[in-house]
């Protein structure tokens, strides 16, 4: 029996608040945590199968053209080498998320330097990789490769749906008392998950069993089916543990398809584990952005005009373009607005979703511009933001589902000690270090996805939650168990959650901050159904039924659950269907980030000294995993602001820094004391009143650091990351100005 809910509007019942078990919201540890920290959690790359052989991807060393010959004969003579596979179904890069459309096939057609073009299969991993490196390839190169979005030769498209204009922005800008008109750049970035992309494929009687590093299994199943030309039901994907994805595992990747084809051809299980460089250069990346931000404000600091133009890039023919201005439309009030969105067609690794596509870069740049405006107006940056919070969504007039930005700002400022900030730069010095503070609003659109889950209640008083949801390190196992435990009145230890298998009900998957709320709602609905049946057996209306510690309680009667089950296990499915709610109200998560940094006056090195974030995400499902997500987002903000840049060689577009030694994510020493505060709320427009937290932290946090650097030393860097060279140039210039 399935309990369906189409999410069409608000729900003020807040049923979860009426439950008695008291486990939801608590910082429950991950049930699989011990497996992970002791190395016993089996990830895709650890999977073994009898008779398994290994594949290694071969990399194109031209930017644009076609493979004419793979000189396979030589490598086929090498010890252990079994095959060189150049099937036309091999794909060129990773797929996008939440679609069953596979990535572009025909890997022999090269559109970026580093593209996988073939797979070498050998008895051992070492043999396969050795042969893949030694395989010589002949190409017919095509001229006209464009390696960067600002190359004048780049074809630039303006997708009609992504342009918008309200009022008379040019006139408003001209009439404004104070104007900001600046260009900001953010770098191409890598998801850089700790676990490299990997797949193990095995055919069992015409059916494909695939272990793969994926965030969303149901849509990936569709992608694999379409890529191979088989039916989705003939594919089973398993991904019980995924070591981070950050967008790069939303869709299938080249090694997924290659492993499946190779396993079919070899009639043996084939494992393909990407090397670290391959994991960075054959999957997907976040587009670099060039953003022109214009603002007009009156004397009081009220925005009259907002202009946000963006130039992003992607391969020719790719629909995805980094949605830079996603939150620009509704974060601040202004009567006159313009959004221009340009996509340059380049021959670089495909651009796709990386943690918080859109706001991660868009809100960050916009919040830097807000700081410049506050500076120009002589206004406190917090006050400027408070002054421009809209009552309803600008342009559409839709209500906000909940709006906690003002509280996030004021509460954050209070807790951080913002009142100690000096309004002018270069006011606080400790030895060689300029010290400053900066802040930023945090904003991220919130959405739910269709999701199904099954919950079974056994006579022994245990429950089983089953769904194809993934746990990419976020805490899905803990959270889904908590929801079921809360709804069914069971201790955490009595609930088991099984994930990561397409044979189970199709969930939302993990991505876009929608996983816990969407799939959690499906679990919630399944449990509601079970509760109804238990209530019927108890002879009371479901809302009056109390379930706690394995007992049903109503009206002075307390019985073990099993006595209500008629001697048989019970099972129900929950099915959440996104409905009109998303159109009726603007739903977003809100927060604020505050940072204190030191800037070395000699070298330009930046050290974040402390950081604080306030987060309003509706109901907090698990205080511990939610906090970890908030911390992770803020740390990504540090990376975006200070260190992370996927460098493309200007001559051929290839990724120069393809490993974690040279692609600099923040290390522990870069991450100071971080504080996270949740502004607990209930968003009626969200099922379970819970919204996403996986991305909000990164949606502006970097700007708090950029702004703090300016407050410290007076240097504005408008091209991220703010590496030493850029800060140093500013310091030298400032010194020259001061004579």
């Amino acid at each position, binding site marked *: 029996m399935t309990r369906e809910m189409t999410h069409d509007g608000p729900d003020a019942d807040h049923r979860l608040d009426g439950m008695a078990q008291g486990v939801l919201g608590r910082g429950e540890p991950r049930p699989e945590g011990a497996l992970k920290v002791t190395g016993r959690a089996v990830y895709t790359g650890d999977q073994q199968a009898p008779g398994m052989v290994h594949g290694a991807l071969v990399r194109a060393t031209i930017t644009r053209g076609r493979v004419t010959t793979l000189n396979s004969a030589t490598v086929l003579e090498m010890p252990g080498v079994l095959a060189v596979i150049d099937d036309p179904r091999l794909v060129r890069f990773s797929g996008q998320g939440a679609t069953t459309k596979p990535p572009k096939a025909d890997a022999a057609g090269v559109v970026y330097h580093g593209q996988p073009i073939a797979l070498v299969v050998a008895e051992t991993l*070492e043999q396969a990789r050795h042969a893949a490196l030694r395989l010589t390839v002949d190409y017919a190169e095509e001229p006209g490769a464009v390696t960067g979005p600002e190359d004048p030769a780049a074809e630039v498209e303006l997708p009609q749906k992504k342009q918008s204009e309200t009022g008379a922005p040019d006139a408003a800008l001209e009439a404004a008392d104070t104007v900001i008109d600046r260009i900001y750049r953010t770098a191409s970035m890598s998801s850089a998950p700790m676990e490299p992309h990997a797949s193990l494929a095995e055919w069992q009687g015409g059916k494909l069993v695939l272990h793969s590093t994926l965030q969303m299994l149901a849509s990936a199943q569709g992608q694999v089916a379409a890529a191979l030309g088989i039916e989705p039901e003939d594919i089973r994907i398993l991904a019980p543990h995924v070591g981070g994805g950050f967008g790069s595992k939303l869709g299938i990747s080249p090694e997924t398809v290659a492993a499946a084809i190779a396993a079919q051809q070899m009639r043996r299980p084939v494992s393909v584990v990407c090397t670290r460089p391959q994991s960075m250069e054959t999957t997907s990346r976040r587009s670099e952005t060039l953003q022109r931000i214009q603002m007009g404000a009156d004397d009081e600091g009220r925005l009259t005009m907002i202009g946000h133009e963006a130039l992003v890039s992607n391969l020719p023919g790719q629909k995805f373009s980094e949605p830079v201005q996603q939150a620009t439309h509704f974060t601040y009030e202004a009567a006159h607005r313009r959004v221009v969105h340009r996509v340059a067609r380049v021959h670089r690794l495909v651009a796709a979703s990386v943690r918080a596509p859109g706001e991660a870069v868009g809100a960050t740049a916009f919040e830097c511009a807000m700081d410049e405006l506050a500076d120009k107006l002589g206004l406190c940056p917090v006050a400027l933001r408070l002054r421009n919070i809209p009552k309803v969504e600008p342009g559409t007039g839709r209500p906000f589902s909940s709006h906690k930005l003002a509280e996030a700002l004021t509460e954050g400022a209070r807790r951080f000690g913002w009142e100690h900030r000096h309004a002018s730069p270069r006011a606080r010095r400790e030895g060689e270090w300029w010290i400053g503070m900066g802040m930023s609003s945090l904003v991220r659109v919130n959405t739910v996805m269709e999701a199904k889950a099954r919950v079974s209640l056994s006579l022994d008083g245990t429950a089983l939650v089953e769904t194809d949801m993934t746990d990419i390190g976020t805490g899905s196992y803990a959270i889904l168990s908590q929801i079921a435990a809360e709804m069914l009145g069971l201790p955490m230890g009595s609930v088991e959650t099984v994930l990561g298998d397409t044979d189970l009900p199709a969930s939302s998957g993990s991505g876009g901050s929608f996983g816990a709320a969407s799939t959690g709602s499906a679990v919630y609905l399944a449990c509601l159904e079970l509760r109804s049946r238990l209530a019927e057996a108890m002879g009371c209306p479901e809302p009056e039924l109390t379930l706690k510690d394995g007992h049903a309680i109503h009206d002075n009667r307390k019985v073990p659950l099993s006595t209500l089950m008629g001697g048989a296990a019970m099972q129900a499915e929950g099915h959440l269907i996104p409905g009109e709610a998303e159109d009726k109200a603007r739903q977003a998560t809100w927060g604020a980030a505050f940072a204190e940094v030191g800037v070395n006056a000699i070298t330009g090195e930046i050290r974040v000294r402390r950081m604080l974030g306030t987060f309003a995400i509706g109901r907090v499902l698990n205080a511990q995993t939610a906090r970890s997500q908030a911390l992770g987002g803020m740390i990504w903000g540090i990376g975006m602001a200070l260190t992370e840049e996927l460098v493309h060689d200007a001559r051929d577009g*290839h990724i120069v820094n393809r490993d974690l030694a040279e692609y600099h994510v923040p290390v522990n020493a870069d991450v100071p004391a971080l504080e996270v505060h949740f502004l607990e709320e209930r968003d009626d427009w969200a099922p379970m009143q819970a919204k996403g937290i996986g991305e909000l932290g990164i949606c502006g946090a970097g700007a708090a650091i950029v702004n703090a650097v300016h407050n410290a030393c007076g240097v504005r860097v408008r091209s991220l990351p703010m590496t030493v060279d850029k800060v140093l140039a500013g310091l030298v210039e400032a010194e020259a100005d001061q004579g």
Partner: protein
Amino acid sequence: MRAFDYIRAGSCKDALAEAETPGTAFIAGGTNLLDLMKHEVMTPARLVDISRLDLRGITLTDAGLRVGALVSNSDLAADPLVRRHWPLLSRALLAGASGQLRNKATTGGNLLQRTRCYYFYDTAMPCNKREPGSGCAAIGGFNRIHAILGASEACIATHPSDMAVALRALSAEVELLAPGGGRRQVPLAAFYRLPGDTPHVETVLEPGEMIAAVLLPPAEGGRQIYRKVRDRASYAFALVSVAACLRMEQGRIAAAALAFGGLAHMPWRSADVEGTLIGEVPSAALFDRAADLLLAEAKGQGDNDFKIPLARRTLAAVLAEATAEDTEGDRA
């Protein structure tokens, strides 16, 4: 990875005998070599594992400190004698890599680590160091981490070690064992080579020669500083680093030894720079003159131009710190 033979050496003599076969490389900690082999940047046919040899001692002698080639970076950094008399070395070691790597990495191996040039690591790119005669992709490419001193048209790579920079300032020597049983001592200054047109030949090590020890002359006294500027707070190679041993007498600089990392194919040291400082009263103008001398021949490649002002400023700051007691009020 190319298949290779693995031989575990039981003695130095065995190791040296094994190394006479062409295509043999020694392996100790393997923290750099294994990565290079996995990516086939280096493809030795044979590995002679010397990690079990008895080269782990740290001994104080009349001639100074003798550090066995197999002393781990962690042990060397933590050694009480080193911390007391050569703190510069300890600080430089701790400024490099990560705790896990330092536990495995050895003194001899650290000296021989290869450049972190992106193009050296990418076998699809031309690189004269990896494949002599193939060209240099870093020139005209992305060269933010590359050399500004002593580079050539064949190679603009830098040496990545922090430890070696400290050793250079400390006037260390390297003790080498030859396959025939010979033993020689080479000053670190003469151990490394500039790239010239043979960037693949990085040291004066003869085929089969092995580093047995590093020898430090007695500490000079005075102040020792290691300052490393890098892209993140830890686990990043130096953009610029300065190792300084400086002694003041009666308000004047009596002795100065300065070595620089991140600037060249080898730890850089300039007698002119030190000469201009010795005997002088420290001042911002003096530090500037020292920087002028250091950087007179400096040449940026575009992305690394910033290293020139960065080196100048870092040197001045280090000198100011090293001479601070006598120059309060006169700091840059």
